């Protein structure tokens, strides 16, 4: 990625963040002359967490997706397709079922544990040198299992309110999160992203094969463990606060590698930036949707991401790996 491209992406990010804070502007603009304090409170306590969560969650999905794709040497790998997201969702739902949606720390720990369990199971099932078919089948099996168990937890919900809370959260939402909740997602996520960025060079070396990467002085086993734990940590923390949001982790790295001449490790930074942009754009789209109520953001990313995924599969059939 050249400096000009990085600066351009940074500028776009800043613009998207401002738009996310300001839009729709009408209500706040009307409020400013009447009650300045309330208008500021609206901006800081309602809009800021939403804008920040979109950035942080999107960046986490992008960086995690890029790292997982580099690790598995497979452009179809991503936190959703490897079952990480659904594992995290199951972990959080089970924790919520036991303790309620009131304890963000417990929810975060539950989600991270669920994500770790899903990725651990995937490594055990598919093996470290997973081929596309094995990887996708294992990820599918884990997602299906986690999905079924999540549904079971919903079916056994103690009350309709508990069911509705859990269901709404599962659809993925950035709305009405507090600054404290934002910190609960943001701190682990930013630590995970920063650490993943430091692994860019060993991840690039993996392109030459695990043996050669080891001969270059990289500890491949340690690298694999780090990626698994960091992506589970970051994605799990975000899922705990915002629910499961799909496809960003698959799509962002594919665009990012266009900026790094295909280098999978170097793509972690642009993938984080593009992930943040995409999720912020999706969040802006939910506000602009001409429906009575806002669309759940998880639905928007899936509606846009699924056709892209289909295109990618068709593209790969002709051996044009991106």
């Amino acid at each position: 990625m050249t400096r000009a491209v990085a600066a351009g992406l940074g500028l776009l990010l800043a613009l998207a963040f401002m738009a996310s804070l300001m839009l729709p502007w009408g209500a706040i603009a009307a409020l400013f002359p009447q009650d300045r304090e309330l208008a500021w409170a609206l901006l800081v306590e309602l809009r800021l967490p939403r804008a920040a969560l979109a950035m942080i969650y999107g960046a986490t999905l992008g960086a995690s997706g890029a790292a997982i794709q580099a690790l598995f040497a497979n452009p179809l790998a991503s936190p959703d397709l490897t079952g990480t997201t659904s594992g995290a969702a199951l972990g959080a739902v089970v924790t919520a079922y036991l303790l309620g949606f009131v304890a963000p720390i417990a929810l975060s720990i539950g989600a991270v544990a669920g994500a770790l369990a899903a990725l651990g199971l995937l490594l055990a099932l598919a093996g470290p040198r997973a081929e596309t078919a094995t990887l996708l089948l294992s990820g599918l099996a884990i997602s299906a299992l986690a999905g079924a168990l999540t549904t079971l937890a919903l079916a056994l919900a103690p009350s309709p309110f508990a069911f509705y809370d859990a269901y709404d959260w599962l659809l993925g939402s950035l709305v009405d999160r507090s600054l404290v909740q934002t910190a609960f997602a943001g701190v682990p996520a930013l630590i995970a992203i920063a650490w993943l960025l430091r692994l860019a060079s060993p991840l690039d070396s993996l392109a030459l094969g695990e043996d050669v990467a080891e001969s270059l002085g990289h500890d491949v086993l340690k690298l694999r463990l780090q990626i698994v734990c960091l992506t589970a940590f970051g994605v799990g923390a975000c899922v705990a606060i915002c629910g499961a949001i799909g496809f960003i982790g698959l799509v962002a790295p594919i665009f990012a590698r266009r900026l790094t001449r295909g280098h999978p490790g170097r793509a972690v930074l642009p993938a984080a930036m593009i992930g943040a942009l995409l999720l912020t754009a999706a969040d802006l789209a939910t506000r602009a949707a001409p429906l009575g109520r806002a669309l759940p953001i998880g639905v928007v990313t899936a509606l846009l991401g699924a056709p892209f995924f289909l295109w990618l599969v068709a593209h790969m059939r002709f051996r044009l790996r991106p």
Partner: protein
Amino acid sequence: MTALVEAAGLTLPGRLSDTTLALAAGELTCLVGPNGSGKTSLLHAIAGIGSPAGTVRIAGDDPARTGPARRIRLLTYLPATRELRWPLGARDLIRLGGAGPEEAELAVVRLDLAAVANRRVDRLSTGERSRVLIARALAPNPKLLLLDEPTANLDPLWQIRLMEMLREDLARDGRTALVAIHDLDAAARYADRLLVMDGGRISADGPPGAILAGPVIPAVFGIERREGTWQPVR
């Protein structure tokens, strides 16, 4: 001549047992042996692949305690497989691991890759891909080259060019190379020293002429020289 590379007690369980080896500067050492005799395992153990036991010193430095940036100046390893995990451009791949832009460009020219340097490696022919991977291993000019079947997939002219290029480099810069190879005649022609592997051990070590004429080859490979060619032992 003092040894540039000293390896002692190299062991990979089930594949390589307690091997000690010294390689002199400027020498090309060829490694021959039947399939599964431990040639690749010996290269792996020296390169530090697969957590081998034992010690390796290259010009006094321990590669296991050397970070990636300096380690690439100590040793590079060319695996026998020409499959790649991830499609990159040929020039990018040659620079992967730490060769500088000028070193990479020189390697591109020496292996005659200028015409394909911007193409993706998965779209090259197997022979071109082999040359890209060889260029990747040669570019950083390491003190020790560990090459597994470098001439595989190369046409006859390139097989000769590569081995002569290696001999020139080693003699000029006082570096050293350990080259696993199946072609006994090529080994005889280019090697200063021949190692024969059998059952995870070095079973013969010396000048190629003497070894190829001696009793080791029939015993280890089950072939002998008759009427000017290698044929199964009668």
